[in-house]
């Protein structure tokens, strides 16, 4: 019995809890991508770097607050800086739409033109972030780091294995739940949210009904930029901030959006967790987990790891390719890219 409990604790500590946190971060990112796709009808390649830009603003302000001695006690200072980071990202996204995407919208350009334009925007965001904050790895989490420490857990339970629950993981899940509830309430219940869904569903009829497309597009950018900054900040708190990693996040985020069905907010959330669980469970070394439930003599010599963590992005890539081949509109019947 204790062996099984130990094994479960190992699994929870190294697979389940990290996947839940990572999945929530991906889901928030994928929600932004999916909303942009639903309303503006293109896959926004600059989303990862919009996340990086928003997070960078949060970090700079965190440093500023720390220097001023302003903090939130046990909570990370970054959460105090988050609203300001959101504002900065929203302004950047709105400015980009004004300068870049509006031009193509007026010309009624093909979606692929938008995608290529967004690649250009991605490089500009990329450069912006690197000019201000550099390319190095930055840890900006402060306050109480752990909610449950592994050592304390072992003492309480008397188990051989420890379970650590980091604050950043709990913050991620709590904030993600609140944000998702707020977003769905907005989309389902408010006039503006319904207008957004109507515009996404049938642009011509929305115009005929007097829905102002400029306003719908603007609100979509506001929401997407806010989601990007929240996702980026939570990811940075949980792991670390490095501009290049945020660019790389684009792949799992797109995989999440596509698995769930792009254009479907529900799908983005489901997709985020599917991709996160796949990535973590495929790259986790199960040796320690197996050591509790397998007789000594049966234990394999290796780490029992399906794929090295260096290849974790291959998981997203395989998921992406498989979904596009087998079920291009995803689980929740989104659009086909």
């Amino acid at each position: 019995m204790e062996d099984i409990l130990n094994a479960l604790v190992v699994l929870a500590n190294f697979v389940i809890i990290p996947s839940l946190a990572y999945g929530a971060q991906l889901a928030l990112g994928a929600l932004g991508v999916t909303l942009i796709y639903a309303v503006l009808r293109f896959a926004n390649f600059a989303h990862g770097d919009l996340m990086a830009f928003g997070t960078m603003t949060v970090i700079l302000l965190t440093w500023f607050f720390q220097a001023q001695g302003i903090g939130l006690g046990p909570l990370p200072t970054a959460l105090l800086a988050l609203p300001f980071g959101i504002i900065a990202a929203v302004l950047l996204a709105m400015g980009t739409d004004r300068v870049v995407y509006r031009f193509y919208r007026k010309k009624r350009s093909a979606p692929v033109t938008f995608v290529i334009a967004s690649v250009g925007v991605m490089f500009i965001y990329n450069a912006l972030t690197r000019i201000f904050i550099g390319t190095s790895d930055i840890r900006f989490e402060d306050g109480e780091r752990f909610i449950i420490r592994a050592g304390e857990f072992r003492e309480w339970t008397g188990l051989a294995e420890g379970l650590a629950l980091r604050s950043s993981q709990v913050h991620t899940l709590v904030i993600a739940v609140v944000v998702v509830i707020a977003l769905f309430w907005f989309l389902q219940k408010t006039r503006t949210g319904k207008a957004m869904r109507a515009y996404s569903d049938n642009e011509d009829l929305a115009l005929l009904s007097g829905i102002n497309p400029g306003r719908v597009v603007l609100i979509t950018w506001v929401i997407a930029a806010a989601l990007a900054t929240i996702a980026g900040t939570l990811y940075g708190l949980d792991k670390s901030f490095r501009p290049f990693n945020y660019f790389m996040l684009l792949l799992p985020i797109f995989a999440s959006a596509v698995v769930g069905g792009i254009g479907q907010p529900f799908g983005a959330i489901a997709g985020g967790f599917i991709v996160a669980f796949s990535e973590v469970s495929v790259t986790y070394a199960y040796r320690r987990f197996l050591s509790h439930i397998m007789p000594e003599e049966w234990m394999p010599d290796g780490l029992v790891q399906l794929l090295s963590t260096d290849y974790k992005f291959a998981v997203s890539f395989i998921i992406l390719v498989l979904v596009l081949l087998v079920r291009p509109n995803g689980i929740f019947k989104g659009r086909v890219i």
Partner: protein
Amino acid sequence: MSFLIGEGMTGGYGGADILHDCTISVEKGEVAVIVGPNGAGKSTAMKAIFGMLQMREGVVRLGERDITGMTPQERVRAGMGFVPQTGNVFRTLTVQENLEMGAFIRDDDFSETMEQVFSLFPVLAEKRRQPAGELSGGQRQQVAVGRALMTKPDVLMLDEPTAGVSPIVMDDLFDKIIDVANTGIAILMVEQNARQALAIADKGYVLVQGRNRFTDTGEALLANPEVRRSFLGG
């Protein structure tokens, strides 16, 4: 003076003219039907009246007011409702949300209008929480008409409302359309099912190659041997 009139409309989609000096009008509480062979410019005439087509010549007047230069959106605000032939409902939105979106430009309380739509189309009240995309073709057309009625228009324009529905549903839809006309709304529609449509029409227009060929009451057109022979299949 007619309530809504498109007079001497000439124009097309940029290339050659499709409409040639075409005139269509409708009175309040009246049903006017545009019929004619394929490619006669029926839908084009409707689009010209609704401002979806740049006319080279001609004027559109709505209750004495010249609306020729208005965009379709402005015409909706001026009191015109339009039900396109395809893509006329928000498929992923519920029936009720479709109606709410129809009333998007209204800032006042539109619950009374919604109740009127529900009493006109009782089946929609039953299915108010269902996505419009899950309804049958006839029910979807009712949602489309209901959506257009939410602005309380003076004129309702329908582009082939019975396209792709069964004959029974078609009769039912025509009955509903007469009900709508009886509330004092002017109805202008384009129809493929010429015989049935003319039977309920106060006024009928037979268009051929973008020109008015015959204009008369629906009854008279149905009785006209030339119209019967050429357009109604004997």
